[in-house]
């Protein structure tokens, strides 16, 4: 049976395909595939990184011109070299966009990308030195040996193959640490940097990857049409429509984008009555989508709906032992010398000097506004002191960004709770292990065994930690839906499995129920000797029972050390 299909299929296909897939239909589907690829590239910055770009048509155009010039001029490089050139040119242009995106917020970046699109279309794409100038550029179809992809059907097959490649790269991106990092930085750059994810660099990565994808998509389009000029990638015929395709289709992920691209680019060409309606329909759909979706365009759909067995409520006996992971180096010592912070005539910290012994637990108490959180912010790098030095891990921390400090082993929690509310509990626990995942970006995008192994281990550890923290039945629930106490537990669990050796805890006991507080106490007791802990807390009884030493901050000044147990 199966053999007969194998024997019969090729001749049957050979007879049927030319009838169904005429030259013009193949061209139409080719255009749809190219639009889908361009919309996927836009989706990376729009949905993952939350940056609306009106310049992705121009990025695709850069790819098309790069590949076109490489394959049609001078030594007439082969198609594959053209694609690589398009990816490189696209990623360089994407990097420039990313540099703007890391500095410019919201509408300012949108306007910059609009300016970029129009400047490319009206100027750079018409320069004779870089492109073929006003007459446009003839681009050859690819060839392998003596076979030329002259038939639109043959080229469509090749285009689908490359599109599948882009699809897989996007899939790997969103399921690897790279996509998680991009999403984390987009949701909350401050918390992301506390887990060692550098916001600026991560946004730049998103734009470089997206630019390379756009460049390849554009090259694919150019070779399909055999011709590009400045108008091929114009703002209103490419950049704007792919925003609509990505925004509407993106609600249903990659499949949605592909379907939307086919609906936009192929349907009107296949069915005459639909001709000219595609922009109108997509525009109305786009307006409808943004009016309904209050959260905005950023934020990916949650993937994977696997459920884990309920494991009872409340932290288990294993939770405190998460703190007992042994380190090769001894737990770090931290020394602050004459740290002062002044903001607008207000002396927030005044020559604070403090030394915390390795493996000890120090509690900082004081009234509201006495500078406790500022002190933690100075250590974790969120605030630069006006004077004084911070020493930890045997080095001066001056000049290190918050994410670099996180990378050398400083972990912290926030009074407002440092989680990513839109992400699942599992993803939060994976972000916490971000710096332990050591595979390269290339390995992540190509789904290499090293990446799969590391991801699997991180996932396993995250699940174990979730169960230990009593969150075993809500791994796939978004962190927003947790109760306040559960959020606090999750945040502490994240810091514990991030393998930070120096823990800065900002009011860790606030909002915890009695059993949570007991678990926290036993966790801190287990941590004694293997981690250094600095905690800020209002609950004096709690501080008395867990801390080795208590210091009192009063209006930014360190009061005399007070012995444990005194009032």
């Amino acid at each position: 049976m199966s053999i007969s299909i194998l024997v019969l299929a090729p001749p049957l296909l050979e007879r049927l395909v030319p009838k169904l897939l005429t030259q013009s239909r193949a061209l139409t589907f080719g255009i749809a595939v190219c639009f889908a690829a361009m919309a996927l590239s836009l989706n990376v910055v729009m949905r993952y990184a939350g940056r609306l770009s009106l310049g992705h048509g121009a990025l695709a155009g850069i790819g098309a011109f790069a590949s076109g010039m490489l394959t049609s001029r001078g030594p007439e490089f082969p198609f594959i070299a053209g694609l690589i050139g398009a990816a490189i040119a696209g990623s360089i242009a994407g990097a420039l966009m990313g540099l703007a995106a890391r500095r410019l917020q919201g509408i300012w970046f949108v306007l910059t990308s609009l300016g970029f699109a129009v400047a490319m279309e009206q100027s750079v794409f018409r320069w004779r030195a870089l492109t073929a100038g006003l007459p446009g550029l003839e681009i050859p179809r690819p060839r392998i040996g003596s076979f030329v992809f002259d038939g639109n059907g043959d080229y469509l097959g090749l285009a689908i193959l490359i599109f599948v490649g882009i699809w897989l790269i996007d899939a790997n991106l969103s399921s690897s640490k790279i996509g998680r990092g991009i999403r984390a930085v987009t949701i909350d750059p401050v918390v992301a940097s506390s887990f060692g994810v550098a916001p600026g660099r991560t946004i730049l990565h998103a734009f470089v990857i997206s630019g390379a994808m756009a460049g390849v998509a554009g090259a694919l389009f150019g070779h399909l049409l055999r011709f590009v000029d400045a108008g091929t990638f114009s703002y209103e015929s490419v950049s704007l429509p792919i925003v609509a395709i990505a925004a509407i289709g993106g609600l249903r992920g990659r499949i949605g984008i592909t379907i939307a691209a086919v609906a936009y680019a192929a349907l009107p060409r296949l069915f005459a009555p639909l001709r000219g309606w595609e922009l109108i329909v997509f525009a109305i759909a786009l307006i409808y989508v943004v009016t309904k979706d209050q959260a905005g365009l950023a934020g990916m759909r949650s993937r994977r709906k696997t459920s884990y067995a309920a494991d009872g409520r409340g932290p288990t006996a294993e939770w405190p032992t998460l703190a007992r992971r042994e380190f090769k180096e001894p737990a770090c010592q931290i020394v602050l010398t004459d740290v002062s912070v002044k903001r607008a005539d207000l002396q927030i910290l005044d020559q604070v000097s403090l030394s915390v012994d390795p493996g000890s637990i120090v509690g900082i108490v004081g009234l509201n506004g006495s500078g406790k959180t500022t002190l933690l912010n100075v250590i974790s790098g969120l605030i630069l002191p006006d004077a004084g030095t911070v020493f930890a891990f045997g080095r001066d921390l001056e000049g290190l960004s918050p994410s670099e400090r996180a990378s050398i082993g400083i972990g912290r929690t926030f009074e407002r709770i440092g989680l990513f509310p839109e992400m699942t509990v599992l993803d939060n626990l994976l972000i916490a292990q971000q710096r332990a995942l050591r595979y390269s970006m290339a390995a992540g995008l190509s789904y290499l065994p090293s990446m799969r192994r590391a991801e699997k281990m991180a996932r396993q550890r995250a699940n174990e930690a979730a169960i230990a923290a009593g969150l075993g039945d809500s791994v796939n629930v978004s962190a927003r839906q947790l109760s306040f106490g559960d959020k606090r537990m999750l945040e502490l669990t994240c810091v514990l499995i991030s393998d930070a050796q120096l823990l800065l805890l900002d009011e860790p006991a606030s909002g915890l129920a009695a059993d949570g507080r007991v678990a926290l106490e036993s966790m801190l007791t287990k941590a004694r000797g293997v981690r250094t802990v600095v905690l800020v807390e209002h609950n004096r009884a709690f501080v008395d029972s867990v801390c080795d030493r208590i210091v009192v901050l009063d209006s930014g000044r360190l009061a005399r050390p007070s012995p444990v147990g005194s009032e």
Partner: protein
Amino acid sequence: MARALIAGIADGGIYGLLAFGLVLVYRDRRVVNLAQAEIGTSSVLAATLIGVGMWPWGAIASVAIGTAIAIIFERVVVSRMETSPRSSVTVATIGLSLLLIGIERKFLHGAASITAPIGGLGPKILGYYIAPTRLIALGLVVALDLGLLVFTKRTRLGMAATAASEDRIGAGIVGIPAAAISAITWGVSGAIAAASSLLAAPLFGLGPGSGTTFLVRGMAAAIIGGIDRPFGPLMGGLAVGVIDSVSGYLFVQKGFPGISTVLLMMTIVILSFTRARTMTEKAAA
């Protein structure tokens, strides 16, 4: 060179008009209307298609259509997005511009030549004729800028509008009709959009999707002029006109067409960096 300078100043009025419409809407709800130029294009094309001739009925019809598009969009879409992030509202205006381009391509592509509302070559300065439409545009921007200044600083409604733009809920509590003010603001900006396209049409030509070229120049003019500065749109418009024509004079013959859009983009980027920083500093203080 001197002629290029004068040509630039003459064009400045049209870009200033566009910038004025953008600034007006932005001041209301901090929304950038990326469809501003396309509203003008589509209403002029629609009016020409009706076939009443351009002057004066066609012009009146264009302005009426522009006003209607803007008010309908404000009422049906923007007013329902009070709680949405501003970026979503910006995307909605992208939707509007796509919709208008779609309608232009499907139904209005037959709209042909548009004659200048007022003929003649206009006055001659340094051997360069300044078309009457350019003069009208300049005069209109000056009048609108002046009017806005008087309106916001001297009238009760103007102060109410400023209050509503800063805090809509608070303004509602003290009895300011924020919704009505928004609708009026959008309506006026729609009318201005139609007027700017009307005045630009005989000089630059209009067609489906031609709004983009104007949009990026109007945007540059709005950013250069500054959003809250009196006479910002006029100054920005003049600056853009001069950059446009002088760079064209200097570079186009040398094989670098459209260099002015590159210059304008760089201006947008540089000003975005500095303006964005002062905005966040203001927010932090």
